[in-house]
């Protein structure tokens, strides 16, 4: 029997990026806010101390700060005719457990989506006709526009101290920036990171190939920075230990380095760690959330009543919780009806490794130190003759030169022994790699539901993921890879190695932690779980944050858009608090 605790105004499920922002915004309104986090508390010192964080084996290989599949996992299959099996090791994506969430171990690649991305269905049909959208693709507009989100992108970028070069300020294209980006109100808070040798090579080659390279936006501080909340960050040291590590130098934006110093001082904020939320509770009418049930690390069950419930867990975990709580209609891939579990999407990536003679010192890197092009993202190019929808950026990231996992070897290099050593010796300092970061559309038969067989540590059905790469994504990725190859060839290489993403999606090798959808936003309650303000259509005091709400995935890393949507939702919550009820009537 769950022990019932005193009510709070707002309970947040999870304590990562979105929870930190919502907590900061709502505590300013005077509300009592509580965050429930399944992992541990973590802070820059001692947890990410530069005296020990540069330990690739511990963090990158042995997954020190990720979620543990023994406690949380999912089952996976490529298609409905297969039987899903549980993931017993992390692979394709790496969610976090612990305060700060994946905001601790991300690279800091902090993008805005393109204006067309938010109206992709309307835009595609207008430009290419209705027949251009393939059968079975659940292409959906977001219900929010780039212009709606622009002020909130700005908020998140200034919170994080993003380093970058604006490409479009108020409609005027800026030299050196991304000419394809939507108009922004002002430049980035910090100038771009210092370029590495490899990004300089890329820039030159991309220009030679006729493209428009720019420094990728980085939530790694190029200079010391104090954000609008008054939180101080130090300048990035280019140590090369961003992705899968916490930053020891207060240089990578994370909840710890941008929000928590303010939030944790507040009397009206509290958090509890090692608390796994297992249900969202509703009243008998099913139109009001009354709180959550959670289990602490000793297995004790608690009921936490709350006036508002905000789901801030990792993308698919929010969906799992909704399904377990029997909130909303579960998605049915046969009828296409239902909303919870609908429109799961991901990312399709490929790369071209470049071997050349110039010494690049790859170890001097930063998670979002890169030079990229957006010529083939979104609908920045004519898809008519190509026949696919979507695109992605192409970038040379110089995230670091860690010895175990960050090195590139030419085609035919032995996998071990003297030949491998020779290959490493000859190439470590001079090789680099160009990445493509492709969008993935949502499809009728890609979805999340409860597994009929497997249960988790709490005895609950596990979440089941059904997903594969479709011909549209393969065609798009192949096209992107060909463009990347052009740049690689312009870099005067001794050889290149093309890593095309072929065949079925495999959940085993790491790709990206950019899982999207499952409780998406939209303007129609029949095809979306939350309204354009991220408020549940059915339960006005239940909100869903994060990439869970993306109707499909764009050709960018999601965190910038997750941050902007969170601020957008927080602004809507303030209106809701003044006048509780649905902010939109369908």
């Amino acid at each position: 029997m769950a022990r019932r605790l005193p009510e709070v105004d707002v309970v947040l499920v999870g304590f990562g990026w979105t929870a930190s922002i919502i907590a900061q915004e709502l505590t300013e309104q005077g509300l009592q806010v509580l965050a429930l986090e399944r992992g541990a508390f973590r802070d820059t010192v001692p947890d990410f101390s530069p005296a020990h964080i540069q330990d690739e084996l511990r963090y990158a290989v042995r997954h020190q700060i990720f979620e543990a599949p023994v406690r949380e996992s999912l089952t996976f299959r490529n298609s409905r005719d297969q039987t899903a099996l549980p993931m017993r090791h992390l692979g394709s994506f790496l969610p976090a457990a612990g305060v700060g969430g994946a905001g601790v171990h991300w690279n800091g690649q902090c993008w805005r989506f393109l204006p067309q991305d938010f109206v992709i269905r309307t835009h595609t049909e207008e430009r290419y006709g209705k027949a251009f959208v393939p059968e079975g693709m659940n292409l959906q507009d977001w219900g929010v526009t780039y212009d709606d989100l622009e002020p909130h992108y700005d908020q998140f970028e200034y919170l994080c101290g993003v380093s970058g070069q604006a490409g479009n300020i108020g409609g005027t294209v800026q030299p050196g920036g991304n000419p394809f980006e939507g108009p922004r109100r002002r430049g980035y808070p910090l100038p771009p990171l210092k370029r590495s040798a490899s990004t300089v090579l890329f820039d030159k080659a991309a220009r030679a190939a006729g493209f428009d390279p720019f420094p990728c936006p980085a939530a790694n501080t190029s200079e010391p920075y104090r954000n609008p909340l008054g939180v101080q960050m130090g300048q990035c040291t280019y140590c090369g230990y961003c992705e899968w590590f916490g930053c020891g130098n207060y240089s990578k934006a994370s909840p710890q380095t941008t929000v928590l110093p303010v939030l944790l001082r507040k009397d009206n904020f509290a958090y509890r760690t090692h608390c796994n939320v297992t249900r969202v509770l509703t009243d008998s009418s099913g139109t009001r959330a009354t709180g959550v049930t959670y289990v602490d690390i000793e297995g004790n069950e608690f009921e936490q009543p709350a006036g508002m419930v905000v789901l801030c867990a990792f993308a698919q975990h929010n969906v799992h919780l909704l399904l377990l709580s029997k909130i909303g209609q579960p998605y049915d891939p046969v009828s296409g009806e239902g909303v919870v579990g609908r429109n799961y999407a991901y990312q399709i990536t490929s790369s071209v490794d470049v071997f050349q003679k110039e010494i690049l010192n790859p170890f001097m890197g930063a998670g979002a130190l890169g030079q990229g092009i957006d010529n083939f993202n979104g609908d920045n190019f004519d898809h008519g003759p190509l026949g696919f929808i979507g695109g992605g950026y192409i970038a040379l990231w110089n995230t670091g030169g860690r010895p175990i996992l960050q090195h590139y070897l030419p085609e035919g290099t032995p996998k071990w022994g003297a030949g491998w050593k020779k290959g490493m010796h000859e190439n470590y300092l001079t090789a680099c790699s160009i990445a493509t970061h492709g969008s993935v559309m949502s499809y009728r038969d890609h979805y999340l539901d409860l597994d009929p067989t497997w249960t988790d540590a709490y005895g609950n059905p596990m979440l089941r993921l059904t997903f594969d790469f479709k011909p549209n994504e393969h065609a798009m990725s192949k096209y992107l890879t060909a463009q990347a190859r052009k740049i690689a060839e312009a870099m005067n290489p001794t050889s290149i190695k093309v890593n095309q993403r072929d065949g079925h999606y495999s959940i085993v090798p790491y790709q990206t932690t950019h899982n999207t959808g499952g409780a998406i936003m939209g303007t129609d309650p029949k095809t979306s779980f939350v309204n354009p303000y991220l408020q549940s259509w059915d339960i006005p005091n239940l909100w869903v944050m994060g990439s869970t709400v993306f109707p499909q995935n764009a050709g960018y890393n999601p965190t910038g858009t997750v941050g902007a949507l969170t601020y957008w939702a927080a602004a809507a919550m303030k209106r809701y608090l003044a006048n509780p009820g649905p902010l939109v009537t369908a």
Partner: protein
Amino acid sequence: MNLPGAFQRMMLTAALGAAGCGLVAAQSLPGTSPARLSAGPYTDIQRGLYLVRAGDCRSCHTAPNGQPFAGGRAVPTPFGTIYSTNITPDAETGIGQWTDADFLRAMHHGIDREGRQLYPAFPYPWYTKVAPDDVAAIKAYLDTLEPVRSLPRDNELPWPLNMRTPVAAWDWLFLDTGVYQDNPQKSDAWNRGAYLVEGLGHCSACHGDKNLLGATDKDHPFGGGYAENVFAPSLTGGTRDGLGAWSEDDIVRFLKTGSNGRESAAGPMAEVVEMSTQYLTEADLRAIATYLKDLPGGASQSRGDDSRTALASDDSRMQHGAALYYDNCRACHMDGGTGQPQAFPPLKDSSSIQAEHADTLIDVILNGARKPVTDGDFTGLQMPGFAARLDDGEIADLVTYVRNGWGNSAGAVSSDTVAQLRSDTRHGGGDVR
């Protein structure tokens, strides 16, 4: 333990983190001394709270995780451990039965209600300068606290110090009683600053050198001294290890926020800023700055030597230290020891780095440090400890380099000194989990 060092770490200095340069409210009534705190807009109780903060009473009178003001905090001294007393108004275990006169006698003469001598870990040699109506306001505030029943542990002092009578002799030798008297040659602000620095703030308890019996050296009251395992730097006008290069604004900002682009408070001073000085009014902080900036510099006042020359850069210790700096420190403190504006403090031209003794720097490298968390600067950036990463010889050479690089100049450090501090400090194990 090196003996002079041991004796310098005397019981007064051990008034843990109590070096608050305390101050009082801004206005003064006609006819009263400008240095004294006037009632101004405050009621006595509010004024008392302000004064309690100015005196940093709570720091010493609160045990770790204990009830505020209920005492029990261990004050380690070279002579033994003294435990602070309960100053909540509990009748039996606190000061609930004390009259204002009892309280005044304790503050001015170091004698408790029962007539027993108090140990001068309680800074009555400074509080004796506090005006009686300010003392009454402090009592008025303490009387509003929730009474907490809590008897502190017995002091752990050897004979004969466990007898209180020797303290009377100590008082006879070293205690100058009497309320602060204005210096008519000086400005109102100067006098207010002096009143607060020499009175409630009891700054020289840590920042002054001590004699063998733990009394502050009256000839060098602000020349630098020991507090716990750190060396509280000189507050005099010395340009290397004093405040000679600081502006009044630098002092005000340091006391208000904990850092000022020149220095970041560490060790006991971080607690002083957090618990005490950040709450003082701008006018009072400026008065403190006025007074401190008027302290004379030079070797006669500051124990550091402005004219000393740095170790040669080809000294093997310097070369080893420079390499260690490059690998371990440079990422935040930057080439040239310049630090990062508002983030990580500079090491070049730092008075605490060039202090007579390097204990503060060694302690910070061993155990790490956190910038004070104040309303004015609340990020609380932390430096990790390097105890698990660097051995004694490495830390010695690193410290020697930092004290002599980039134009700095201060004495070299031996690995024995580091070894001693490593064994002294409480968290010598470093930060690796």
